[in-house]
């Protein structure tokens, strides 16, 4: 039995308090890339009752994604945007979402991210990461960006950190551990990094700007 909307809201307020929940429920967050980072960030924010998620990814679910991304075996072949929307709705039936099954580049970034208050960079390609961060900081002066770098391998979970680089730019990860043939991505360490990103989003919403 799916709870009614007011029951759902009451449960969130019970956990987060009226004022904070009001802020969470009126915030719009864009998640750019729906892989190991993005799918886990979206899960955490959906559970927290975020107002709206803008979900962006051009790719489809692949069997090699399932060890760390929030998809299921029966979703192989589906677009990640649609599969994730389905999974998030099962958790939070009242979540508002905007799906964009496209590749972000400098021609469409501004339009895709216009409604977002906070942007999560959750790509895997380092050049794509740098491009998005530079674009948002240069061209979208009111937005916050929470990016990630360095979460591959079996290194200690304690080396995953959040750094504040400037007023609108936060970076999560250990800044070193690159994915390679010898060092793959483990769900636990990627989730730690995604949790840092989601938590940073919630802290910005709470106006707790220091790390």
């Amino acid at each position, binding site marked *: 039995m799916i709870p009614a909307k007011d029951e759902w809201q009451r449960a969130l307020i019970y956990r987060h308090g009226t004022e904070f929940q009001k802020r969470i429920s009126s915030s719009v967050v864009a998640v750019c890339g729906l892989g190991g980072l993005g799918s886990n960030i979206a899960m955490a924010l959906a559970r927290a009752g975020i107002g709206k998620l803008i979900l962006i990814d051009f790719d489809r679910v692949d069997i090699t994604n399932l060890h760390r991304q929030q998809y299921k075996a029966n979703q192989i072949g589906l677009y990640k945007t649609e599969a994730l929307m389905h999974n998030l709705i099962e958790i939070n039936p009242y979540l508002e979402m905007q799906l964009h099954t496209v590749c972000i580049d400098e021609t469409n970034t501004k339009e895709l991210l216009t409604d977002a208050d906070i942007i999560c960079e959750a790509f895997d390609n*380092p050049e794509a990461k740098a491009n998005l961060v*530079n674009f948002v900081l240069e061209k979208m002066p009111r937005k916050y960006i929470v990016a990630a770098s360095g979460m*591959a391998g079996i290194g200690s979970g304690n080396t995953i950190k959040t750094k504040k680089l400037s007023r609108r730019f936060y970076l999560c990860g250990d800044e070193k551990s690159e994915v390679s043939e010898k060092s793959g991505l483990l769900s636990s360490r990627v989730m730690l990094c995604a949790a840092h990103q989601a938590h940073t989003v919630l802290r910005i919403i709470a106006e707790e700007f220091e790390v």
Partner: protein
Amino acid sequence: MVKINGEQLGIDGYSMTEYLLSAGYDIKRVAVELNGNILPKADYDETLLKDGDSLEVVSFVGGG
């Protein structure tokens, strides 16, 4: 002296591009904050580092 990622270096007079290349960075993978503001990539060539500048260079690695 220029402060880069917390470390003082005597690279006054270098352009941003010269410094990044000399330090082995791949310019396509970086974001640079100069004195707390993003430095647009288009300005790397003509931005000369001067005494007292504070830089944060983020070099992204793959994985996500």
